């Protein structure tokens, strides 16, 4: 068999992904739900003391400069990065192959690179009621002052572990385990019916 380009990846949401307006949308939709399907999702982890070097490596490879502080992050032009644990960062890129780029930049002395491009599903919720809908699931404060743009949070809704990055004043990107993604998506749609939602 001849070598060829990898086929398109299958989304775990596919059978339950129904584009269009749903729920109580007669008065307009208050949230928009999408799957962003990035090509690369990486977890980068620094050894204690090597955090600064890892942050430099991230800037070199992605051009994204991480702000200081726990859970700090930044998003822009198809790339995003945020801290989710001490010395640990999630880096996301529309394009595939980010892992190989980092495998050189992150030397064993700095830390480790773990490719989760298939293992996590990225769901975006945007709109004036995004905070309201997310507050139904997660016990964290979504208000802008408490959760600034670019910042990341690790949290959980019972069995579903989630990393959430605020990528806009009323926009959040949620990374969940692929095997749970379909259940979470269904729950998210269910919870959005009250405010009216559109799947794009």
């Amino acid at each position, binding site marked *: 068999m001849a070598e060829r380009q990898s086929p398109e990846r299958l989304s775990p949401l596919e059978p339950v992904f129904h584009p269009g307006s749903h729920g109580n949308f007669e008065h307009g939709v208050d949230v928009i739900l999408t799957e962003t399907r990035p090509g690369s999702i990486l977890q980068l982890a620094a050894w*204690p003391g090597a955090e600064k070097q890892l942050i430099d490596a991230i800037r070199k490879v992605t051009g994204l400069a991480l702000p200081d502080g*726990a*859970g700090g992050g930044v998003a822009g032009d198809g790339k995003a990065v945020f801290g*989710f*644990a*001490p010395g*640990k960062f999630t880096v996301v890129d529309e394009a595939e192959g980010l892992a190989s780029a980092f495998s050189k930049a992150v030397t064993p002395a700095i830390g480790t690179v773990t490719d989760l491009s298939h293992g996590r599903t990225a769901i975006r919720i945007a709109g004036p009621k995004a905070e309201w809908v997310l507050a139904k699931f997660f*016990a*964290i404060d979504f208000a802008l002052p408490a959760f600034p743009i670019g910042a990341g*949070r*690790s*949290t*959980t809704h019972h069995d579903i*572990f989630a990393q959430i990055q605020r990528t806009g004043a009323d926009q959040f990107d949620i990374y969940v385990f692929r095997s749970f993604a379909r259940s979470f998506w269904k729950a998210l749609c269910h919870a959005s019916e009250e405010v009216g939602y559109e799947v794009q």
Partner: protein
Amino acid sequence: MLITCPYCGPRDVIEFTYQGDGNRERPQPNSQDLDAWNAYVYDRLNPAGDHNEIWQHSGGCRTHLRMVRNTVTHEISSTGFARGDHNAVARHKEGGKS
């Protein structure tokens, strides 16, 4: 109950897993002192009052915390990373609480 994770900030107890008595000392891996091993595995300090405990922020950053929590009031007087931060108790005493 809210637990202040040194990395994530205050979070609901539902995000945490209790990992028990933080006063236990694990013997050296090659130790043959069976009593010490038994004590480490089975015996617990169980005070009514301030207790030095290990928790994991399993529903968050997944790091382990060492904290002092009052087992009668559930008030938490200090939290810190378990990794390389074994002075939570000492700091708490200096803090002059309890």
